[in-house]
């Protein structure tokens, strides 16, 4: 995604004598338009980053606090002071929780579709999953508020009662449960279809010869999946999860609708008013923000931009690290 190498402009080094072929016009047109789009993407990316930076500068220069380490967010008045520490934490917490909840479920559904379900059912399910992936996130937010919130309250009570000794489930349980865990569950449901769809594609591509290798050794279906399908699909599942993570990180509406915001850095998942995400903060505050506040929000947006970039690069790294064993 973020290739930083300059586009190759030179011809392939010295074609062997006598085999020099004339380049066809079609090839040239395609090659150049492909190159142009590649460059264009980089230019746009850079332009967006520069734009955000310029817009953020006024607030950053007037900031009395430390932008990176402070947790409070008060970018107004005579002494504006704001920092993204709590917001970054909240953003990552919500996204990672969503991922932790969604990925195993997505892998399970994808495996069921690709390797267990009869063919008819499999194609029906695949179709449904693709449909779910297309639902706008506002709808998931509404679903979270109207359906999930009332249902999840008793479940959280139970979590707290039986697992309350684990700090993350400590009380008092918020009611209504406008907590980070609820938001993460909504996010998880939101990213579930896309992660499932990508994982299913990958699992379906498992080479038959490796599946047969496992089965011919006397593997059961599950053992075959463990020996052939999962190792083959590993990097694809990681990419799928990162795709989901990217979506969860940038998600505004579902979180803004469900979560009761706060700016603490802690892991109390069942308590309201403890966390907030960057995207939801921007969505909530932008409409009524003063010039300076907008500038501060843009600075926060820039941080989100950087996080997403880092996540994507990390994903690439993880995927490429095990190349040797997968090619």
């Amino acid at each position, binding site marked *: 995604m973020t290739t930083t190498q300059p586009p190759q402009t030179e011809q392939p080094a010295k074609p062997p004598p006598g085999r020099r072929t004339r380049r066809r016009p079609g090839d040239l047109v395609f090659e150049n338009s492909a190159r142009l789009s590649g460059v264009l993407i980089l230019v746009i990316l850079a332009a967006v980053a520069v734009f955000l930076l310029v817009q953020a500068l006024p607030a950053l220069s007037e900031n009395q606090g430390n932008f990176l380490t402070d947790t409070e967010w008060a970018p107004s008045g005579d002494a504006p002071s704001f920092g993204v520490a709590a917001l970054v934490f909240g953003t990552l917490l919500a996204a990672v929780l969503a991922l932790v909840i969604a990925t195993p479920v997505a892998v399970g559904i994808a495996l069921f579709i690709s390797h267990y379900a009869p*063919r008819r059912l499999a194609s029906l399910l695949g179709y449904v999953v693709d449909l779910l992936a297309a639902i706008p996130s506002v709808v998931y937010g509404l679903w979270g508020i109207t359906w999930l919130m009332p249902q999840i309250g008793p479940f959280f009570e139970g979590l707290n009662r039986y697992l309350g000794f684990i700090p993350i489930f400590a009380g008092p349980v918020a009611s209504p449960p406008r907590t980070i865990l609820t938001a993460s569950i909504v996010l998880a449901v939101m990213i579930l279809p896309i992660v499932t769809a990508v994982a299913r594609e990958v699992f379906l591509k498992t080479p038959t010869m*490796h599946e047969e*290798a496992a089965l*011919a*050794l006397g593997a059961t279906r599950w*053992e075959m999946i463990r020996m052939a399908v999962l*190792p*083959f699909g590993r990097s694809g599942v990681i990419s799928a999860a990162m795709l989901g993570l990217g979506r969860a990180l940038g998600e505004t509406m579902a979180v803004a609708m469900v979560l009761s915001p706060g700016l603490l850095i802690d892991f109390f998942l069942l308590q309201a008013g403890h966390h907030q995400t960057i995207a939801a903060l921007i969505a909530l505050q932008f409409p009524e923000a003063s010039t300076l506040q907008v500038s501060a929000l843009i600075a926060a947006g820039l941080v989100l931009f950087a996080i997403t970039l880092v996540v994507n690069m990390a994903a690439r790294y993880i995927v490429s690290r095990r190349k040797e*064993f997968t090619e």
Partner: protein
Amino acid sequence: MAKRIDVSGLNVYYGAFRAVEDVSMTIEPRSVTAFIGPSGCGKSTYLRALNRMHEVIPGTRVEGKVLLDDQDIYAANVDPVAVRGQIGMVFQRPNPFPTMSIYDNVIAGVRLNGRRMPKAELDALVERALRGANLWNEVKDRLNRPGAGLSGGQQQRLCIARAIAVRPDVLLMDEPCSALDPISTLAIEDLIAELKTEYTIVIVTHNMQQAARVSETTAFFNLSAPGKGGMLVEMGDTNKIFTNPDKKDTENYITGRFG
């Protein structure tokens, strides 16, 4: 080890298409049986029906009987997974698990069903299987390297090592050399000659010299009619099949007059 296979009246169907028509034969233990015949005459299909690998493909069906010594592998209470543990298979294209090391590839089958073994025992087993597949000397210093990094012929021997590591009674090989160069092919043929002292071996081959070199018994398959499935034309002592076959079709095929 090394069991006899008794097939009677075997038909194999893909949906409505009968790809193998009414084949009966006896495959002797501790010997090599070669299947020859033009492509599309059902050799692979038939071979896969001998360890129930065809069931992996949806829509397949089998009629008839396959006995492994006295055990009917299609009996209602027999688990296909167990059958495949007893009757191993080597495929046309070498298929080591690409994410596993050489060592892990060899013990892949042994690790199944949650079996646990002390490390020393595993090490011994890996060495035995790799020696059995004539591969030990070539890979003993890089057991933890990926199996996919070996040459094609080495990969195929690795697959054989993996198959014999679970100590099957029978080894089925479907054109195991067709993707290999001549040197690797010879290495595999030597290996087959050694393995037959311990296993019942069935090999499908397109290469008639190979059939003549490695097998004691040869079975010639042919299409029963254009557009129909395959059938067993003739089976017998390899020398006889190649020098003095009973059937005209067999003679035509081995002398290269058709196929």
